[in-house]
């Protein structure tokens, strides 16, 4: 619907709920009897009654003419506004109308009230209704008798949990979270290789339950996951239980209230829970990656609903994962990693770094299979109480990783197929060489978790490198 035309002459916009509007009713009557005036009322069609008002029921007049305050008095000449005044100011209104005794006996000045068209509870809906939509997605009407959440389950758009219906108002509000244009292409999403626009990602973010301030993180996660190096297609198609894990860092994580502390890999934090979920909903609904179709996981893992957490980079003794990939510390950034579910690395007795390194290395050797090496990466989520043991001994990131790698070399004879009575293992032919568990870049060190508990967590990765997936780090684009 286009912009409603205002009639020539004086026009006033008022609402009964505003005391100043009620105060100026005698003024409106004086103007009606004199030069004439058209009055629009926002809330009560019977206000002011005398003079009779036009009811701006859908607030189209108020919205299109940018009314921020009531009362507003406008002069229109040949269909165009030539001036306006708002609130009640006796001298201003007298000058504006040229009537010297206007509002005799009234207080000299009264501030106006907020226009109903800028009410924060209404503004998103009004923008959707009157904004001349910038959104291109197909509109789908939900029948009166239909439950919109059930409808979205039925259409196959849910990951198994209820999704928030992506109304135009909600999607527009989500788009306020970024400066990027709605029609900008964010990524080509596997497996169907469909271009996802900022708008389509916003729809997924609404459905996942994101707030607009999370949206730049969602966009960046989608960009990072839909790269050739990350290989989201392979991640779907594999029978292994992996999904995209989003590791966030930078001051922006605290601004949006992400959890990097107690229960960091668990439930209960809206940003952590919904950013990863939004990424997976983009893969599902835009890319067409659905379980039982291209997603062939034998078991999967609960993190495939969405797995996202923040590093405690404000207290980290060894910086961030993104920093280790070359991003300046203090920059908002994220890394996507192809991994499964977390497992606890338990050690409550080691107080010396050597003992703790020995202990962690033993447990890390078991990632995916203790006799398989170099083919899988792993992410170590070190808790503060473990990290403190290393920090107090002066071990930095490089030292911790070096000491772990040293301890993660195993004689090939113990890893060969058949060794230890286990058919699984590496092929024969390595002689008595010691084989490293991980490639030099295959152990990803992060810092997060509650302040109490001598534990870390390990997240086993998928096939690494050019044959599988390489972690991808991106700075967050706002």
């Amino acid at each position, binding site marked *: 619907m286009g912009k409603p035309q205002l009639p020539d002459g004086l026009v006033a916009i008022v609402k009964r709920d505003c005391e100043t509007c009620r105060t100026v009713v005698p003024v409106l009557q004086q103007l009606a009897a004199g030069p004439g005036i058209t009055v629009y009322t926002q809330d009560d069609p019977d206000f002011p009654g005398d003079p009779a008002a036009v009811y701006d029921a859908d607030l189209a007049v108020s919205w299109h003419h940018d009314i921020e305050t009531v009362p507003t008095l406008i002069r229109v000449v040949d269909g165009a506004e030539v001036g306006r005044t708002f609130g009640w100011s006796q001298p201003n209104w007298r000058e504006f109308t040229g009537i010297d005794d206007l509002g005799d006996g009234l207080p000299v000045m009264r501030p106006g009230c907020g226009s109903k068209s800028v009410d924060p509870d209404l503004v998103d809906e009004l923008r959707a209704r009157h904004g001349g939509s910038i959104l291109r997605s197909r509109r789908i009407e939900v029948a009166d008798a239909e439950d919109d959440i059930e409808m979205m389950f039925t259409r196959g758009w849910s990951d198994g949990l209820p999704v928030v219906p992506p109304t135009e108002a909600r999607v527009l509000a989500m788009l306020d979270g970024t400066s990027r244009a709605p029609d900008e292409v964010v990524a080509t999403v596997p497996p*169907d290789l469909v271009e996802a626009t900022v708008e389509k990602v916003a729809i997924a973010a609404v459905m996942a339950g994101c707030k607009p301030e999370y949206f730049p993180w969602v966009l960046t996660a989608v960009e990072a996951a839909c790269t050739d190096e990350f290989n989201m297609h392979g991640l779907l198609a594999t029978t292994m239980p992996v999904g995209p894990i989003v590791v966030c860092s930078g001051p922006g994580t605290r601004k949006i209230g992400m959890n990097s502390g107690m229960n960091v890999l668990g439930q209960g934090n809206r940003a952590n829970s919904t950013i990863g979920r939004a990424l997976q909903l983009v893969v599902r609904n835009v890319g067409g990656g659905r379980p039982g179709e291209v997603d062939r996981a034998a078991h999967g893992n609960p993190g495939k609903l969405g797995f996202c957490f923040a590093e405690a980079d404000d207290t980290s003794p060894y910086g961030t994962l993104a920093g280790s990939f070359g991003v300046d510390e203090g920059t908002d950034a994220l890394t996507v990693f192809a991994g499964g579910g977390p497992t606890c690395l338990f050690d409550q007795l080691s107080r010396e770094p050597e003992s703790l390194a020995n202990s962690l290395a033993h447990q890390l050797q078991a990632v995916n299979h203790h006799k398989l090496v170099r083919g899988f990466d792993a992410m170590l989520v070190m808790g503060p109480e473990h990290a403190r043991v290393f920090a107090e001994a002066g071990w930095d990131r490089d030292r911790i990783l070096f000491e772990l790698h040293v301890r993660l070399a195993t004689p090939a004879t113990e890893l060969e197929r058949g060794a230890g009575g286990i058919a699984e293992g590496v092929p024969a032919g390595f002689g008595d060489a010691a084989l490293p568990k991980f490639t030099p870049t295959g152990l990803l060190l992060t810092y997060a978790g509650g302040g109490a508990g001598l534990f870390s967590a390990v997240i086993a990765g998928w096939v690494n490198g050019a044959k599988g997936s390489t972690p991808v780090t991106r700075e967050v684009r706002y």
Partner: protein
Amino acid sequence: MTRTILDPTGERSVAERARLARPGSLDGVTVGLLDISKPRGDVFLDRIEERLAETGATVKRYMKPTFAKPAPVDLRHEIATECQVVIEALAD
């Protein structure tokens, strides 16, 4: 009240292509065997090649660089232009 929501899908129109009819025999037909690089896929395909050779079919072997990614477009084109029939092996 009727509510309106936005379509969350890619809204692509799927191009449906009918399958070719199965050949009545393999006489004079070139059969492509695509190894997707999974362990022991070659064991399966070696045996298939033996059996096909016995029928007089021409066999060509192909291999994906990694099972974890779709076959490169050049490889797909090569198979499509050189073969009339293809067998893809998935094994572990």
